[in-house]
């Protein structure tokens, strides 16, 4: 046995990652029971060490970490890139030549920015789900005797991710999720950081008082919306607004052993399925804005062309028509052009939280405050 631990050698097999090696001569060194040279100071962490450092591991942690980190970042960068290209094909109506026309005219930066605009919600949902589930699974697996269960994938991802990435994902979700779904972030946040109500106060009575006060404030803030929702019989909305804050109080903590194994594999499949299911509308959301272009000679009948403007040069305006096909309209014939909303943007609920529509995200809601009036142009009603 070596007299000095190597950091990645045997010691890690016992579940302890030793502190960095001190520069001491290697020969004739007396070691203590843990194999540490006597007289060499141990580096003690200044604060509480993150879970990742104390986790019992069964193989080389550095390599494992590098591999998992690589796969994580490959997913984070690669998925948007692939999606961006895929959706060009969908937008082109499956036509090769049209796809090539789009590829030639839509720059990579525009493509990525367009993708992020429409997919930020999906992206943050995926990240929040992974981090919250990962933290729950991690804390549950930690309680099991080492070696009984391979650490679930999400738990490993959650271990590897720096706290700021997790916080950033939650912030992104906070800004991009519809207000209706924001309460779900509370249990997700409590789970991701394993926040228990004990943190509020060490005594039970003040703790209960603080919780009651927080819930009362939340209820008071949402009271008009809850009343409207009850009046309209929107039970799901009521549940989505009321239940999550209560769940946030109980969600932190280890799960029973019997639940962990099925939960780990089930949630992996579920999150994957959710991402695929939610990705379909993102892929089919257009990259280019929808416009209606009025075309016609100076005197004479006009025609409304509904579609996405791909590019405009000195001679032609190239319009990808909504009903399919590309149309080259001579620039001289363009009389007017208006921007139009699509039917996917129609709201499903008639509820507001302090004048913010519950299907708007915080960003959208604030945007509507900056440019409040949005009149639908007459041309947008024209059939496509």
């Amino acid at each position: 046995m070596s007299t000095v631990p190597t950091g990645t050698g045997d010691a890690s097999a016992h579940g302890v990652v030793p502190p960095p090696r001190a520069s001491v001569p290697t020969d004739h060194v007396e070691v203590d029971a843990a194999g540490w040279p006597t007289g060499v100071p141990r580096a003690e962490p200044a604060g509480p060490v993150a879970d990742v450092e104390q986790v019992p591991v069964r193989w080389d942690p550095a390599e494992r970490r590098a591999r998992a980190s690589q796969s994580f970042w490959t997913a984070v960068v690669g998925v948007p890139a692939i999606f961006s290209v895929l959706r060009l094909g969908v937008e082109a109506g499956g036509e090769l030549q049209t796809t090539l026309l789009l590829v030639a005219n839509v720059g990579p930066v525009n493509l990525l920015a367009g993708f992020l605009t429409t997919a930020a919600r999906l992206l943050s949902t995926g990240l929040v789900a992974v981090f919250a589930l990962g933290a729950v699974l991690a804390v549950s697996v930690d309680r099991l005797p080492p070696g009984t269960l391979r650490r679930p994938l999400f738990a490993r991802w959650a271990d590897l991710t720096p706290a700021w990435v997790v916080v950033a994902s939650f912030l992104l979700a906070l800004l991009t999720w519809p207000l209706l779904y924001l309460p779900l972030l509370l249990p997700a946040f409590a789970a991701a950081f394993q926040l228990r109500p004990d943190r509020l106060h060490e005594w039970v009575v003040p703790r209960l008082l603080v919780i009651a006060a927080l819930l009362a404030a939340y209820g008071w803030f949402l009271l008009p919306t809850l009343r409207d929702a009850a009046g309209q019989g929107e039970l799901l909305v009521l549940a989505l607004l009321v239940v999550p804050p209560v769940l946030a109080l109980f969600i932190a903590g280890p799960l029973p052993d019997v639940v962990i194994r099925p939960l780990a594999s089930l949630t992996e499949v579920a999150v994957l399925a959710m991402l695929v299911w939610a990705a379909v509308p993102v892929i089919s959301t257009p990259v280019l804005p929808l416009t209606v272009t009025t075309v016609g000679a100076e005197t004479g009948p006009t025609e409304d062309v509904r579609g996405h403007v791909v590019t405009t040069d000195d001679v032609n305006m190239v319009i990808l028509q909504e009903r399919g096909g590309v149309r080259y309209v001579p620039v001289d014939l363009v009389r007017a052009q208006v921007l139009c909303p699509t039917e996917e943007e129609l709201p499903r609920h008639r509820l507001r939280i302090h004048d913010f529509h519950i299907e708007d995200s915080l960003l959208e809601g604030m945007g509507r405050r900056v440019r409040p009036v949005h009149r639908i142009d007459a041309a947008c009603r024209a059939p496509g």
Partner: protein
Amino acid sequence: MNVRSSQSRLRAVATTLAVALTLTLAAAAGCDSRKEPDRQSVQEKMRESHIYGQSKLRIGVATDEPLMGDLRNGQHVGFDVEIGRYIAASLGYEGEQQLEFVSASTEDRIPYLQGGTVDLVVSSFSMTEERKKLVSFAGPYFVTTQEVMVPVRLKDKIRTLEDLRDPKYKVCTSGGSTTEGELEKRQVKALVVKNVWDCVAGIRAGRYDAVSSDETILAGFLATYPKEFEIVDLPFGTSELLGIGVPIGDPALRDLVAYFLQKSYQQGRDGQASPWLTAYNRTLGPWLRVEKNQPQPLEVPKLVDFDDKAPRR
């Protein structure tokens, strides 16, 4: 020890329940976000109406009612015309290329709608029970009352209903109007002519002394001859609801028109400049004795539109 383990077991069960419920709610939220709206959208209603895909919208308007529907230098002007323009623009028809005003006299209004000559009629069309059997109405977009207009020379002499009953004054009104019946009910003898123009011309020629009709129509003549006439406020106590006529076979179009009237009503109520108020201020407003507001339209369907998310305040 036992208490502790049962406590931790309880906590584990609570955590499991919380995780399970959160996942269920998240799944429900996911399904909800992909759901179709429960209510019909404006666009769907458009597809149901007979005007969908039509390149031009034809609206029947009056051409002989100053301030309401008038023809000036070949241009249709007036409150009804402006309301018609707003409805047409909301339906997707804007500009001369897409919108055609058809001159419709009082008796043409119903046959034009029935025969498909026009798609809508905005022409001081009172919503009455008999007419509702023949055409549909969206509205009301205006509530008018009966008034009496007298020449300036008689403005101090005719002040009450009692004065009107005096046989030395000749009161004129148009035939077939609701006014005729109303005067009869109040024992006012009236000379009935074809239309209000004849009464006004008669008064100017000295044949009659007063004319009774809708407040809006009289305001139009007052605007035409502001120095010659004055409107006398008499307590007739009846009101007429003016509506937009729609072919009876097209409930979708009726719903759309009612929806857009309601939208304007809502805007006005929120203190914004509504299309109705703009039309009113540009035409009738300065000539009416009492300031009017847009009446609330009846039987408005609940539809979804793109701007439903816009802030209300």
